[in-house]
């Protein structure tokens, strides 16, 4: 395929070992610390160091079936809190003091960090006592029961006070932390007509997006006292597997020609008025980017009479990313620099970058990197 772009190669940095003996469903990087949680069908969550690439601890004993999902609670200092969602229909909350999270000597030994190992030896930390509390590090705090079948996704709101969960039972639940290890159900929303696969919070508003087996993406927010559906994004032709929000700060990409400076300014203004965009990926092999149509002032004054309309969201499909996958697309993420990564059943990892298209009014997304990784031994 001829292209003016050079395709950077993605190379493997490390393999996290020892790994789970069975399917790893999801990996979640810690919001601030160099840690990664992976959840697995062996009913465990493994916490790895992203500096030494070694296993730090294994969370076991909380769930009776596959752990499908997990999420780190944001905005915490000195402590880490992890929510887990399982095929056993329950959600677990786990806690851990951060100062325990340094690599234990036995892991350091097998790891890459020889300095740390030497230091540990010098300090006399290499001993049996170091391993004693290995499994006690993570404390089970509370189980949230309510879903009737497999929990597929859990997500903390940006402030960390709300937890959203979704399930094969077609419902989306919102939980509020009302005290230490005390959570209350504040909403159960059942408008989806199929399994709810993924939930994701808007980065600055208490606005939740959900993706479903019913091919729709729904938006939810609190209106007066009740949480309810405030928008349905239709367009996908099959299961929507994942939704992801753009970061708060709009990134300006690429250079523009002189003649296009006005257009770029227009784009930036529109982006500021719309706020972060939403991206969704599907079994239909497409990735779509959705943009909010800002409410006009005139409309708002009219809507103050018709109360129920005030929370409605007006979203449009802005663009579909270039087709790169040949099997269902299961996961997407938006980087802080505005790049997008996707992966799916075809084992390919694809990186996209948004660029100005010559002579076009709208910036279109261009695929710039395409790298199939060795998911199943492919070279």
């Amino acid at each position: 395929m001829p292209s003016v772009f050079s395709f950077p190669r993605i190379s493997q940095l490390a393999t996290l070992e020892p790994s789970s003996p069975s399917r790893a469903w999801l990996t979640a990087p810690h919001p601030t610390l160099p840690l990664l949680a992976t959840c697995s069908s062996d009913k465990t969550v493994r916490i790895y160091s992203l500096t030494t690439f070694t296993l730090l601890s294994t969370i076991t004993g909380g769930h009776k079936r596959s752990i499908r999902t997990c999420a780190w609670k944001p905005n915490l200092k000195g402590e880490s809190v992890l929510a887990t969602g399982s095929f056993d229909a329950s959600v677990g909350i786990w806690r851990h003091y951060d100062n325990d999270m340094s690599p234990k000597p036995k892991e350091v030994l097998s790891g890459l960090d020889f300095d740390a190992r030497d230091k540990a030896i010098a300090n006399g930390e290499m001993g049996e006592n170091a391993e004693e509390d290995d499994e006690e590090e993570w404390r089970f705090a509370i189980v949230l029961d309510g879903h009737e079948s497999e929990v597929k996704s859990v997500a903390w709101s940006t402030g960390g006070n709300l937890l959203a969960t979704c399930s094969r039972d077609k419902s989306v639940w919102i939980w509020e932390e009302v005290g230490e290890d005390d959570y209350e159900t504040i909403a159960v929303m059942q408008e989806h007509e199929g399994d709810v696969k993924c939930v994701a919070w808007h980065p600055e508003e208490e606005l939740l997006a959900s993706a479903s087996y019913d091919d729709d993406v729904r938006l939810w927010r609190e209106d007066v006292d009740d949480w309810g559906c405030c928008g349905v994004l239709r367009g996908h032709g099959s299961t929507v597997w994942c939704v992801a929000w753009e970061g708060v700060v709009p990134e300006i990409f690429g250079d523009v020609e002189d003649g296009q400076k006005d257009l770029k300014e227009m784009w930036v203004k529109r982006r500021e008025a719309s706020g972060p965009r939403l991206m969704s990926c599907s079994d239909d092999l497409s990735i779509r980017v959705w943009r909010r149509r800002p409410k006009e002032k005139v409309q708002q004054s009219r809507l103050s009479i018709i109360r129920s309309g005030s929370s409605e969201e007006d979203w449009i499909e802005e663009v579909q990313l270039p087709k790169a996958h040949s099997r269902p697309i299961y996961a997407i993420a938006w980087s802080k620099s505005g790049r997008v990564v996707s992966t799916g059943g075809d084992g390919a990892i694809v990186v996209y970058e948004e660029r100005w298209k010559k002579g076009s009014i709208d910036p279109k997304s261009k695929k710039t990197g395409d790298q199939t990784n060795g998911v199943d031994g492919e070279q």
Partner: protein
Amino acid sequence: STVPPSAYLPDPFSPSSSSDSELSDDDDAEIEPIDEQEIYDLISPISDPEHPLTLGSLSVVNLPDIFLTPTFPEKGSSSPLTTLTVLITPTITHCSLATVIGLGVRVRLEQALPPRFRVDVRIKEGTHSTAEQVNRQLGDKERVAAALENGTLMGVLRKMLEGCENGAG
């Protein structure tokens, strides 16, 4: 009770140590081609959940309804990924066990084939009243995985696959 994870290849999406050794054992790393007939031989001895008859003898699985295609045709031989599509023909158009039969075929293939195969099991067009619904269930990685964690269902599947274990060794 559930089947231990090691008893089948549960996951076409994750690296498998067995496939690694399989590839490295072979000096020229040549992948042995598998043809439609071999696929048919893997699934035809599966027994129907209701009858003591095999899917082959009931013509639920048929050789002309098995298709092997490269997953990335544009990459040619640089990608070993192969998409395997098996179309099944239920004995009656409202067969309530079509999903279970499809699941049995899928589990059998994922057990027997190296993970470079992407397996699609679907109902042959026009042969079942709720084909679309069944196809979506069989294509959903999470529903399939959850089904395999269901002890009762796994018991039924194990029984269906009994003949295969002996036949295919």
